[in-house]
């Protein structure tokens, strides 16, 4: 479904160069459900945009749905986005002045397909909003808006869904419902890529990718056992992080402070690429501080 080799994306800011992607190699088979995590600025969205044919890499090769992206012109890329890819965004990105139905219809406007209305209606049914098609985004909850956005993403029956923090603006329960829809779509054979900051979301994938500074530093298959392990660990880390923060604010006695923190990336480094694993290990074993918490630091314990 996706093949990327030595993907680089550089942004030139005056004299300095930002390496949003610093040579990413990635292969995703059709039907996979992959989650991508990583600190803010690690290049997750950049990668999604390139894989989604919205952006072009500075260098490297991308193949999506059997097409070599760099060989295609804008018009052909638009067709691929329209036919094969569905985007879901953190902020829903619905058109506020029109109804749910019209929002779902948008991709079809560029498809010029017969029975467009039926397709849009079906897609809304699929996400359980068949009865809300006449509502505007302002009349719907966040979860419903995101479901409309998913309906829009699937209306053209794409083979690939790229979701950039789809649950980021939703509470845990609603996020869970959204993930449920992704699971169903996955069961139908759609390849799914979800960027997330939430461990609970990330572990639902079959495969977890962790990014850091424009590189993939972890790439692990997840089975039930591992899922359990990770969640427990994450929970531990949360607790520790919480204690640590609390201690910093002197809520807890100093004795309760946790001196060492082990983040998720280090805890099961066996997965992909030893080098990267070691890198990560080295970094996270450096003296602790609030900034060095690794992955869990991004998770706000209070939110859960």
């Amino acid at each position, binding site marked *: 479904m996706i093949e990327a080799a030595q993907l680089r994306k550089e942004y030139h800011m005056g004299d300095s160069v930002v390496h949003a992607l610093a040579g990413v190699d990635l292969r995703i088979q059709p039907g996979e459900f992959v989650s991508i995590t990583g600190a803010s600025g690690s290049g997750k969205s950049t990668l999604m945009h390139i894989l989604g044919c*919205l952006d072009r890499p500075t260098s490297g090769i991308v193949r999506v749905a059997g097409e070599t992206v760099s060989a295609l012109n804008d018009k052909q890329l*638009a067709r691929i986005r*329209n036919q094969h890819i569905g985007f879901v*965004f953190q902020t829903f990105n*619905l058109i506020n*002045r029109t109804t749910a139905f019209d929002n779902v219809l948008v*991709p079809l*406007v*560029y498809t010029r397909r017969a029975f467009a209305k039926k397709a849009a209606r079906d897609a809304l049914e699929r996400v359980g909003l068949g009865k809300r098609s006449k509502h505007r985004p302002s009349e719907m909850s966040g979860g419903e808006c995101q479901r409309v956005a998913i309906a829009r993403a699937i209306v053209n029956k794409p083979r690939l869904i790229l979701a950039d923090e789809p649950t980021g603006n939703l509470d845990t329960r609603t996020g869970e419902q959204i993930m449920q829809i992704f699971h169903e779509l996955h069961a139908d054979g759609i390849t799914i890529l979800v960027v997330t900051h939430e461990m609970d979301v990330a572990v639902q994938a079959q495969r977890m990718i962790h990014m850091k500074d424009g590189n993939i530093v972890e790439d692990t298959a997840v089975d039930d056992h591992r899922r359990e392990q990770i969640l427990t660990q994450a929970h531990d880390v949360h607790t520790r992080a919480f204690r640590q923060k609390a201690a910093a604010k002197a809520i807890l006695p100093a004795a309760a402070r946790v001196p060492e923190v082990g983040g998720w990336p280090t805890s099961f480094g066996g997965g992909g690429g030893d080098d990267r694993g070691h890198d990560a290990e080295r970094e996270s074993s450096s003296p602790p501080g609030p900034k060095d918490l690794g992955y869990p630091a991004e998770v706000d314990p209070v939110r859960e």
Partner: protein
Amino acid sequence: MFHLQILLMAFRGLKQNLVRSLLATLGVIIGVGAVVSAVSILEGAQRNILDRFESLGADQVLIFNGSDRKSHRQVQTSSLLPKDSDLIAEENKDIIVAAAPQYSGAGQVKFYEKNAFATILGATESYAPMYQYKVAQGRFLTREDVRGNAMVAVLGYKVANEIFGALPSVGKTVKINGKSFILIGVMEEKGAYGFIELDSQVIIPLSTAMGRMFGQRYLNMLVVQCTSAARVPACIERVKKTLRASHQISAGDDDDFIVFTQDQFKQQLGQVALIFGVVLYSIAGISIIVGAIGIMNIMLVSVTERTREIGVRIAVGARRFDILKQFLAEASIISMFGGALGIVFGWAISNLLSELTQVLETYTPPIIIALALLMAIMVGIVSGIYPAIRASRLDPVQALRYE
């Protein structure tokens, strides 16, 4: 090229910002309105006023009181006497068929409790033949009526109709401005002559009008019938010579009368129309430029406001050309909307003008409506092209990040 979905989409977008779109399109409304009213007025003038002057006859010369040139010397404003008319006719028999002196004023015609307002025209027996104006009943004025200051009157078609309807009127006595006149005839229906509505006139002997009716020394107008249109210039020379002699104007001094021909009228009218046209078309041009800028501005605002929407559209498969089309369609729809309002506005203005002035008759040719709409669409496309290009060139990744 523009398929329905995109047009519908554009239309829905605009409904949302109706007031704003209306304001943006004000220039187009005024511009198109000015064009439509300009064309309506000019076309109306063409069809109507020029037509009327056609009825003046190319072989006639009209003479008025007054001075043609700007002179430092005070010129007597009234100078034409009834005897000038006789002199002109008698002295130039070879080239002039007849001269019809006229004096007219306003008046009221009464027959018992019926009454009508009319133009009271003092004329001579030469009046009716000059215009091929025929009596329907009774007879026209005779030389004797004029010589004898007779208290007789001939009614125009409308006046007769208003007072007598289908009843016989010849022989009846009516009061005109309080004085009794015997009706000797009713004229046929004739319509307009120049600016004069013939059917609303009551014709009485010139001598009676200038004497007992209005107490005036000078004529309003003198119409001279030349033997042919080709001889009008020669005719004018003779008229001038006779009148200058009669008015004792010394060589080198200006005329104290003005000579007009159908040609001159047409030219003058053409000039008025031209000035009118230039003014209106300038207003139209400026307004449309303002309108175009207004639409461009509103479209730029719209593009900025909808940056994210554009990003989403590209993400779900819109080609850049699709985005371009959408914004062009929107600009054209706004502009066309303004154009439609402008047409109504222009039509209303021109009708109001013709209503107020009474003289100005307007005519709005259907083709101008189509042209005005077309023009509005063009304005939309021209002013929408830059914003639309901006929209279509947006980087989708940046657009999706846009707050």
